[in-house]
Protein backbone atom coordinates (compact mmCIF):
# COMPACT_ATOMS: atom_id res chain seq x y z
CA UNK A 1 0.00 0.00 0.00
CA UNK A 2 1.37 3.44 -0.81
CA UNK A 3 1.43 6.50 1.37
CA UNK A 4 -1.68 8.09 -0.08
CA UNK A 5 -3.70 5.04 0.69
CA UNK A 6 -2.51 5.04 4.29
CA UNK A 7 -3.49 8.67 4.66
CA UNK A 8 -6.94 8.02 3.27
CA UNK A 9 -7.41 5.05 5.58
CA UNK A 10 -6.22 7.15 8.53
CA UNK A 11 -8.73 9.87 7.76
CA UNK A 12 -11.38 7.26 7.30
CA UNK A 13 -10.74 5.79 10.75
CA UNK A 14 -10.70 9.26 12.30
CA UNK A 15 -13.99 10.14 10.64
CA UNK A 16 -15.51 6.89 11.84
CA UNK A 17 -14.37 7.59 15.40
CA UNK A 18 -15.97 11.04 15.26
CA UNK A 19 -19.17 9.57 13.91
CA UNK A 20 -19.23 6.97 16.67
CA UNK A 21 -18.76 9.71 19.25
CA UNK A 22 -21.60 11.72 17.78
CA UNK A 23 -23.74 8.61 17.63
CA UNK A 24 -22.88 7.76 21.22
CA UNK A 25 -23.87 11.27 22.26
CA UNK A 26 -27.18 10.97 20.45
CA UNK A 27 -27.96 7.58 21.91
CA UNK A 28 -26.89 8.67 25.36
CA UNK A 29 -30.15 10.50 25.99
CA UNK A 30 -32.11 7.32 25.48
CA UNK A 31 -29.64 5.27 27.47
CA UNK A 32 -29.54 7.38 30.63
CA UNK A 33 -26.17 8.84 29.71
CA UNK A 34 -24.45 5.51 29.29
CA UNK A 35 -22.00 5.00 26.41
CA UNK A 36 -22.85 2.53 23.69
CA UNK A 37 -20.40 -0.07 25.01
CA UNK A 38 -21.70 0.13 28.55
CA UNK A 39 -24.47 -2.02 29.81
CA UNK A 40 -27.25 -0.17 31.57
CA UNK A 41 -28.74 -1.84 34.61
CA UNK A 42 -32.43 -2.16 34.03
CA UNK A 43 -34.82 -0.82 36.62
CA UNK A 44 -36.86 -3.24 38.65
CA UNK A 45 -40.05 -4.35 36.94
CA UNK A 46 -42.85 -2.35 38.53
CA UNK A 47 -45.79 -4.04 40.17
CA UNK A 48 -49.01 -4.43 38.25
CA UNK A 49 -51.89 -2.51 39.80
CA UNK A 50 -54.36 -5.02 41.21
CA UNK A 51 -56.93 -2.91 43.02
CA UNK A 52 -60.03 -3.93 41.08
CA UNK A 53 -61.13 -0.30 41.13
CA UNK A 54 -62.48 0.70 37.74
CA UNK A 55 -60.36 3.67 36.71
CA UNK A 56 -61.79 6.81 35.23
CA UNK A 57 -61.27 7.22 31.51
CA UNK A 58 -59.38 10.19 30.21
CA UNK A 59 -61.72 10.60 27.27
CA UNK A 60 -64.98 8.84 26.41
CA UNK A 61 -63.59 6.67 23.63
CA UNK A 62 -60.64 5.45 25.68
CA UNK A 63 -60.46 1.69 26.05
CA UNK A 64 -60.66 1.16 29.83
CA UNK A 65 -57.44 -0.03 31.43
CA UNK A 66 -57.35 -3.34 33.26
CA UNK A 67 -57.35 -2.84 37.04
CA UNK A 68 -56.17 -6.37 37.87
CA UNK A 69 -53.32 -8.77 37.18
CA UNK A 70 -53.49 -10.85 34.04
CA UNK A 71 -50.39 -12.98 34.43
CA UNK A 72 -50.90 -16.29 32.67
CA UNK A 73 -54.18 -15.28 31.05
CA UNK A 74 -54.24 -17.11 27.77
CA UNK A 75 -55.51 -15.23 24.78
CA UNK A 76 -55.18 -17.16 21.55
CA UNK A 77 -57.30 -18.84 18.92
CA UNK A 78 -58.37 -21.57 21.32
CA UNK A 79 -58.95 -19.69 24.55
CA UNK A 80 -59.90 -16.19 25.57
CA UNK A 81 -59.45 -16.05 29.32
CA UNK A 82 -60.78 -12.49 29.55
CA UNK A 83 -64.11 -13.63 28.19
CA UNK A 84 -64.53 -16.17 30.97
CA UNK A 85 -65.57 -13.18 33.10
CA UNK A 86 -66.34 -10.34 30.70
CA UNK A 87 -68.53 -12.20 28.20
CA UNK A 88 -72.23 -11.39 28.22
CA UNK A 89 -73.12 -14.85 29.46
CA UNK A 90 -70.59 -14.74 32.30
CA UNK A 91 -71.16 -11.35 33.87
CA UNK A 92 -73.92 -12.34 36.26
CA UNK A 93 -71.66 -14.81 38.00
CA UNK A 94 -68.42 -12.89 37.69
CA UNK A 95 -69.89 -9.43 38.26
CA UNK A 96 -67.31 -8.09 35.86
CA UNK A 97 -68.29 -5.40 33.38
CA UNK A 98 -69.59 -6.82 30.12
CA UNK A 99 -67.57 -5.99 27.04
CA UNK A 100 -69.32 -3.10 25.36
CA UNK A 101 -71.78 -3.66 22.57
CA UNK A 102 -69.33 -2.31 20.00
CA UNK A 103 -67.29 -5.48 20.48
CA UNK A 104 -70.08 -7.46 18.87
CA UNK A 105 -70.20 -5.25 15.79
CA UNK A 106 -68.43 -6.13 12.61
CA UNK A 107 -67.00 -3.42 10.44
CA UNK A 108 -70.28 -2.98 8.58
CA UNK A 109 -72.01 -2.13 11.84
CA UNK A 110 -73.96 -5.37 12.07
CA UNK A 111 -74.26 -7.02 15.46
CA UNK A 112 -72.97 -10.56 15.73
CA UNK A 113 -73.88 -13.21 18.28
CA UNK A 114 -70.33 -13.53 19.47
CA UNK A 115 -67.49 -11.10 19.93
CA UNK A 116 -66.37 -9.81 16.55
CA UNK A 117 -63.10 -11.29 15.28
CA UNK A 118 -61.61 -7.82 14.91
CA UNK A 119 -62.21 -7.20 18.62
CA UNK A 120 -61.16 -10.64 19.82
CA UNK A 121 -57.67 -9.82 21.07
CA UNK A 122 -58.46 -7.75 24.16
CA UNK A 123 -54.91 -6.67 24.94
CA UNK A 124 -54.67 -4.92 21.61
CA UNK A 125 -56.47 -2.03 23.32
CA UNK A 126 -56.84 -2.91 27.00
CA UNK A 127 -53.73 -3.06 29.14
CA UNK A 128 -52.67 -3.41 32.76
CA UNK A 129 -51.30 -0.43 34.60
CA UNK A 130 -48.16 -0.50 36.68
CA UNK A 131 -47.11 1.63 39.60
CA UNK A 132 -44.14 2.93 37.61
CA UNK A 133 -42.96 6.52 37.56
CA UNK A 134 -43.64 8.06 34.13
CA UNK A 135 -40.45 8.42 32.05
CA UNK A 136 -41.50 11.85 30.85
CA UNK A 137 -43.93 14.29 32.38
CA UNK A 138 -47.45 13.93 31.09
CA UNK A 139 -49.18 17.19 30.30
CA UNK A 140 -52.41 15.65 29.14
CA UNK A 141 -55.50 17.56 30.12
CA UNK A 142 -58.98 16.20 30.26
CA UNK A 143 -61.45 17.94 27.92
CA UNK A 144 -63.46 19.08 30.93
CA UNK A 145 -60.39 20.90 32.16
CA UNK A 146 -59.91 22.44 28.72
CA UNK A 147 -63.51 23.61 28.58
CA UNK A 148 -63.26 25.05 32.05
CA UNK A 149 -60.11 26.91 31.13
CA UNK A 150 -61.73 28.34 28.06
CA UNK A 151 -64.81 29.53 29.89
CA UNK A 152 -62.57 31.12 32.52
CA UNK A 153 -60.66 32.86 29.79
CA UNK A 154 -63.86 34.08 28.13
CA UNK A 155 -65.09 35.49 31.41
CA UNK A 156 -61.83 37.33 31.84
CA UNK A 157 -62.03 38.86 28.35
Amino acid sequence: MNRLNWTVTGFGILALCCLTLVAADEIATLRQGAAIDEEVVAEAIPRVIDTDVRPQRNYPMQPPTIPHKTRGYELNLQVNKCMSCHARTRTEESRAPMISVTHYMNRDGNFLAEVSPRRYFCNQCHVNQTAARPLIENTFEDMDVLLEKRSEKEQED
Partner: protein
Amino acid sequence: MLQYFRKIWRDIGRPSVHYSIGALTLGGFIAGIMFWGGFNTALEATNTEEFCISCHEMQENVYQELRQTIHFSNRSGVRATCPDCHVPHGWTDKIGRKMQATKEVWGKIFQTINTREKFLEKRRELAEHEWARLSANNSLECRNCHNFDFMDFTAQSPRASEQHSTSLASGVKTCIDCHKGIAHELPDMAGVEGY
Protein backbone atom coordinates in the same frame (compact mmCIF):
# COMPACT_ATOMS: atom_id res chain seq x y z
CA MET B 1 -47.42 -78.48 32.40
CA LEU B 2 -50.55 -79.07 34.43
CA GLN B 3 -48.65 -81.78 36.34
CA TYR B 4 -45.98 -79.27 37.20
CA PHE B 5 -48.49 -76.75 38.64
CA ARG B 6 -50.19 -79.52 40.58
CA LYS B 7 -46.85 -80.44 42.17
CA ILE B 8 -46.19 -76.83 43.20
CA TRP B 9 -49.68 -76.56 44.67
CA ARG B 10 -49.11 -79.77 46.65
CA ASP B 11 -45.71 -78.57 47.92
CA ILE B 12 -47.16 -75.28 49.11
CA GLY B 13 -49.90 -77.06 51.02
CA ARG B 14 -47.46 -79.42 52.79
CA PRO B 15 -45.65 -78.58 56.06
CA SER B 16 -41.96 -77.77 55.77
CA VAL B 17 -39.63 -80.77 56.16
CA HIS B 18 -36.18 -79.14 56.31
CA TYR B 19 -36.69 -75.62 57.71
CA SER B 20 -37.77 -74.64 61.21
CA ILE B 21 -40.82 -72.51 61.68
CA GLY B 22 -38.58 -69.80 63.17
CA ALA B 23 -36.35 -69.64 60.07
CA LEU B 24 -39.38 -69.56 57.81
CA THR B 25 -41.08 -66.83 59.80
CA LEU B 26 -37.96 -64.72 60.07
CA GLY B 27 -37.09 -65.33 56.42
CA GLY B 28 -40.58 -64.32 55.37
CA PHE B 29 -40.39 -61.26 57.56
CA ILE B 30 -37.07 -60.11 56.10
CA ALA B 31 -38.17 -60.88 52.56
CA GLY B 32 -41.33 -58.88 53.27
CA ILE B 33 -39.36 -55.86 54.40
CA MET B 34 -37.12 -56.06 51.37
CA PHE B 35 -40.01 -56.45 48.99
CA TRP B 36 -41.95 -53.62 50.56
CA GLY B 37 -38.94 -51.31 50.65
CA GLY B 38 -38.09 -52.12 47.06
CA PHE B 39 -41.66 -51.59 45.97
CA ASN B 40 -41.90 -48.24 47.67
CA THR B 41 -38.53 -47.10 46.37
CA ALA B 42 -39.56 -48.00 42.84
CA LEU B 43 -42.89 -46.27 43.36
CA GLU B 44 -41.24 -43.11 44.60
CA ALA B 45 -38.75 -43.21 41.73
CA THR B 46 -41.66 -43.03 39.30
CA ASN B 47 -43.06 -40.17 41.33
CA THR B 48 -40.42 -37.62 40.42
CA GLU B 49 -40.37 -34.91 37.82
CA GLU B 50 -37.15 -36.39 36.45
CA PHE B 51 -38.99 -39.60 35.68
CA CYS B 52 -41.94 -37.78 34.10
CA ILE B 53 -39.84 -35.72 31.73
CA SER B 54 -37.63 -38.63 30.78
CA CYS B 55 -40.23 -39.14 28.03
CA HIS B 56 -40.02 -36.54 25.29
CA GLU B 57 -43.82 -36.25 25.22
CA MET B 58 -43.73 -34.67 28.67
CA GLN B 59 -40.37 -32.93 28.32
CA GLU B 60 -41.21 -31.08 25.13
CA ASN B 61 -44.85 -30.25 25.66
CA VAL B 62 -46.22 -29.91 29.16
CA TYR B 63 -42.91 -29.33 30.94
CA GLN B 64 -41.94 -26.43 28.70
CA GLU B 65 -45.33 -24.85 29.35
CA LEU B 66 -45.01 -25.31 33.09
CA ARG B 67 -41.72 -23.43 33.08
CA GLN B 68 -43.51 -20.21 32.17
CA THR B 69 -45.96 -20.35 35.02
CA ILE B 70 -46.01 -19.27 38.65
CA HIS B 71 -45.90 -22.89 39.76
CA PHE B 72 -42.38 -23.14 38.37
CA SER B 73 -40.82 -19.77 38.99
CA ASN B 74 -41.97 -17.22 41.53
CA ARG B 75 -40.77 -14.78 44.17
CA SER B 76 -40.35 -17.25 47.00
CA GLY B 77 -38.85 -20.12 45.02
CA VAL B 78 -41.32 -22.75 46.17
CA ARG B 79 -42.31 -24.82 43.21
CA ALA B 80 -44.57 -27.66 42.25
CA THR B 81 -43.24 -30.66 40.36
CA CYS B 82 -45.40 -32.86 38.13
CA PRO B 83 -46.46 -35.40 40.81
CA ASP B 84 -47.37 -32.65 43.27
CA CYS B 85 -50.42 -31.87 41.16
CA HIS B 86 -50.96 -35.05 39.20
CA VAL B 87 -50.53 -37.74 41.86
CA PRO B 88 -52.40 -37.75 45.18
CA HIS B 89 -50.14 -37.75 48.22
CA GLY B 90 -52.13 -40.24 50.32
CA TRP B 91 -50.98 -43.83 49.78
CA THR B 92 -54.27 -45.46 48.76
CA ASP B 93 -55.16 -42.70 46.31
CA LYS B 94 -51.63 -42.74 45.00
CA ILE B 95 -51.77 -46.46 44.21
CA GLY B 96 -55.13 -45.95 42.51
CA ARG B 97 -53.73 -43.16 40.38
CA LYS B 98 -50.63 -45.17 39.57
CA MET B 99 -52.74 -48.05 38.35
CA GLN B 100 -54.69 -45.63 36.16
CA ALA B 101 -51.42 -44.28 34.85
CA THR B 102 -50.47 -47.64 33.38
CA LYS B 103 -52.61 -46.45 30.47
CA GLU B 104 -49.82 -43.96 29.81
CA VAL B 105 -47.42 -46.84 29.23
CA TRP B 106 -49.83 -48.09 26.59
CA GLY B 107 -49.88 -44.61 25.08
CA LYS B 108 -46.10 -44.49 25.04
CA ILE B 109 -45.80 -47.88 23.33
CA PHE B 110 -48.41 -47.07 20.71
CA GLN B 111 -47.14 -43.48 20.31
CA THR B 112 -50.47 -41.77 20.81
CA ILE B 113 -48.93 -38.33 21.46
CA ASN B 114 -45.39 -38.72 20.15
CA THR B 115 -45.59 -35.60 17.98
CA ARG B 116 -46.65 -32.07 18.85
CA GLU B 117 -49.56 -32.31 16.41
CA LYS B 118 -50.88 -35.52 17.93
CA PHE B 119 -50.50 -34.02 21.39
CA LEU B 120 -52.42 -30.88 20.49
CA GLU B 121 -55.16 -32.94 18.94
CA LYS B 122 -55.52 -35.02 22.08
CA ARG B 123 -55.03 -32.18 24.53
CA ARG B 124 -58.73 -31.48 25.13
CA GLU B 125 -59.36 -35.11 26.01
CA LEU B 126 -56.35 -35.29 28.32
CA ALA B 127 -57.27 -32.01 29.96
CA GLU B 128 -60.81 -33.21 30.53
CA HIS B 129 -59.48 -36.25 32.37
CA GLU B 130 -57.59 -33.99 34.75
CA TRP B 131 -60.52 -31.61 35.24
CA ALA B 132 -62.81 -34.55 35.97
CA ARG B 133 -60.34 -36.01 38.46
CA LEU B 134 -59.87 -32.72 40.30
CA SER B 135 -63.61 -31.99 40.37
CA ALA B 136 -64.28 -35.44 41.76
CA ASN B 137 -61.72 -35.21 44.57
CA ASN B 138 -62.49 -31.56 45.39
CA SER B 139 -59.15 -30.38 44.03
CA LEU B 140 -57.27 -32.54 46.49
CA GLU B 141 -53.88 -31.99 44.87
CA CYS B 142 -54.27 -28.20 44.93
CA ARG B 143 -55.17 -28.38 48.59
CA ASN B 144 -52.04 -30.30 49.48
CA CYS B 145 -50.37 -26.89 49.41
CA HIS B 146 -53.18 -24.33 49.19
CA ASN B 147 -55.00 -24.89 52.44
CA PHE B 148 -58.29 -23.01 52.56
CA ASP B 149 -58.24 -22.73 56.37
CA PHE B 150 -55.04 -20.70 56.25
CA MET B 151 -55.92 -18.37 53.40
CA ASP B 152 -55.63 -14.71 54.33
CA PHE B 153 -58.42 -13.02 52.42
CA THR B 154 -57.10 -9.59 53.39
CA ALA B 155 -53.92 -10.31 51.48
CA GLN B 156 -55.85 -11.19 48.34
CA SER B 157 -57.13 -8.81 45.74
CA PRO B 158 -60.75 -7.72 46.35
CA ARG B 159 -61.91 -9.82 43.44
CA ALA B 160 -60.14 -12.95 44.66
CA SER B 161 -61.21 -12.58 48.29
CA GLU B 162 -64.82 -12.06 47.22
CA GLN B 163 -64.86 -15.26 45.21
CA HIS B 164 -62.87 -17.32 47.70
CA SER B 165 -64.99 -16.28 50.66
CA THR B 166 -68.27 -17.08 48.92
CA SER B 167 -68.22 -19.78 46.26
CA LEU B 168 -65.14 -21.62 47.47
CA ALA B 169 -65.99 -21.30 51.17
CA SER B 170 -69.48 -22.69 50.67
CA GLY B 171 -68.15 -25.58 48.62
CA VAL B 172 -70.23 -24.65 45.58
CA LYS B 173 -67.03 -24.37 43.58
CA THR B 174 -63.71 -26.07 43.82
CA CYS B 175 -60.30 -24.78 42.73
CA ILE B 176 -60.31 -26.31 39.27
CA ASP B 177 -63.67 -24.75 38.36
CA CYS B 178 -61.98 -21.37 37.95
CA HIS B 179 -58.27 -22.17 37.85
CA LYS B 180 -58.03 -24.26 34.70
CA GLY B 181 -54.84 -24.06 32.70
CA ILE B 182 -52.75 -22.48 35.44
CA ALA B 183 -49.80 -24.76 34.82
CA HIS B 184 -50.21 -25.70 31.17
CA GLU B 185 -51.69 -24.18 28.05
CA LEU B 186 -55.39 -24.74 27.56
CA PRO B 187 -56.94 -26.75 24.75
CA ASP B 188 -59.73 -25.41 22.56
CA MET B 189 -62.21 -24.37 25.23
CA ALA B 190 -65.33 -24.23 23.07
CA GLY B 191 -68.25 -25.51 25.13
CA VAL B 192 -66.44 -25.71 28.46
CA GLU B 193 -68.51 -24.24 31.29
CA GLY B 194 -67.20 -20.87 32.29
CA TYR B 195 -65.33 -20.19 29.06
